């Protein structure tokens, strides 16, 4: 005769017994290091923040696409990445990234993109970046013609900005001399260096980072 597990009264003892039985029936999952990669997790499509370069509306795009339509103004937005590896005069409008290689020279025209990696030269024209400008060693650009939200000075790059610059977030892995106003965070990484004048809301200097400047770090001032 099998032993019945039915209980007449639900008290704390019966609850503990029930939990113990449940734990025996469903053993704990194996530790993470023994699990197959990706097991137990849901694979989510990559998310990308798109800013419409026609109306400025921001929206999120899930997954990868070569183009999309603005949810607000219905403009067709190119999302492909571009490479400029020669002299360039023309228009690029993309929600992706533009990479100007060391041989690339932007002579004139318009470039509107989300991000740019600059290894070459921006001589003239109108460059507007919705998000980040990454400047690398050997690049040259004119502040008048280049507008970006965030700035990243890559490792090995030494950048001199002759005019007052304003960005949101600035990351320094290389060196920057400027009169800089940052409304977000300035991060000076271990080999990074900043000289000049700095006004920002948040400053983080990693051990090994250099800062030789007039500094104003104040949440109120920017």
């Amino acid at each position: 005769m099998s032993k019945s597990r039915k209980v007449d009264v639900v008290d704390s003892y019966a609850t503990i017994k029930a939990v113990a039985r449940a734990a025996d029936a469903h053993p704990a999952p194996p530790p993470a290091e023994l699990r197959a990669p990706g097991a137990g997790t849901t694979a989510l499509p990559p998310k990308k923040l798109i800013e419409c370069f026609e109306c400025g509306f921001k929206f999120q795009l899930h997954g990868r696409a070569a183009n999309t339509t603005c949810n607000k103004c219905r403009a067709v937005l190119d999302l492909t990445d571009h490479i400029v590896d020669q002299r360039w005069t023309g228009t690029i409008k993309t929600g992706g990234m533009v990479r100007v290689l060391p041989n690339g020279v932007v002579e004139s025209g318009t470039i509107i993109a989300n991000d740019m990696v600059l290894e070459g030269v921006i001589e003239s024209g109108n460059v507007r970046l919705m998000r980040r400008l990454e400047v690398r060693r050997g690049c040259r650009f004119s502040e008048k013609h280049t507008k970006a939200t965030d700035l990243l000075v890559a490792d090995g790059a030494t950048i001199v900005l002759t005019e007052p610059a304003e960005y949101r977030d600035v990351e320094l892995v290389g060196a920057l001399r400027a009169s800089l106003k940052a409304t977000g965070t300035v991060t000076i990484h271990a080999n990074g260096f900043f000289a000049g004048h700095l006004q920002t809301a948040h400053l983080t200097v990693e051990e090994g980072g250099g800062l030789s400047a007039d500094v104003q770090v104040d949440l109120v001032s920017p």
Partner: protein
Amino acid sequence: MENSATPQSVIAADVEITGTIKSTGSVRIDGKLDGELNCTGDAIIGKSAVIKGNLAVNTATIEGTINGNVTAKDRIEMKSSARVTGDIRAKRLSVEDGVTFIGRSEVNPSGVPAAASPIAGAPVVDDSDADKADAASARQFVRR
């Protein structure tokens, strides 16, 4: 046995000092100091500390408020609660997000001189000897 992590001299939170403090060991200040601190050891400025005066120390860990210049032989560490109004000078610096700092900083751990002086009228960045091709084109690719 002496524990190097423990400060040798402690100015407690309810202590207020007017004058100069000189120490050959380490100092922790949680109280108020209206004057200078000269310390060959390390200095820890606690969260409740308020200092009006200059600091000359080996290393400084700042969590409180300083109105004055801080000179450290080795390093200055500013914690998120630090409020410094004055100039700082050290070999190494570490700053946490959240600090308030108004003043001049002279920290150059790698000894690399600041980038060359700006060239007036040339808002151009860095030198480049990049070759300039003639034709105008952009190669396009789609990330998959």
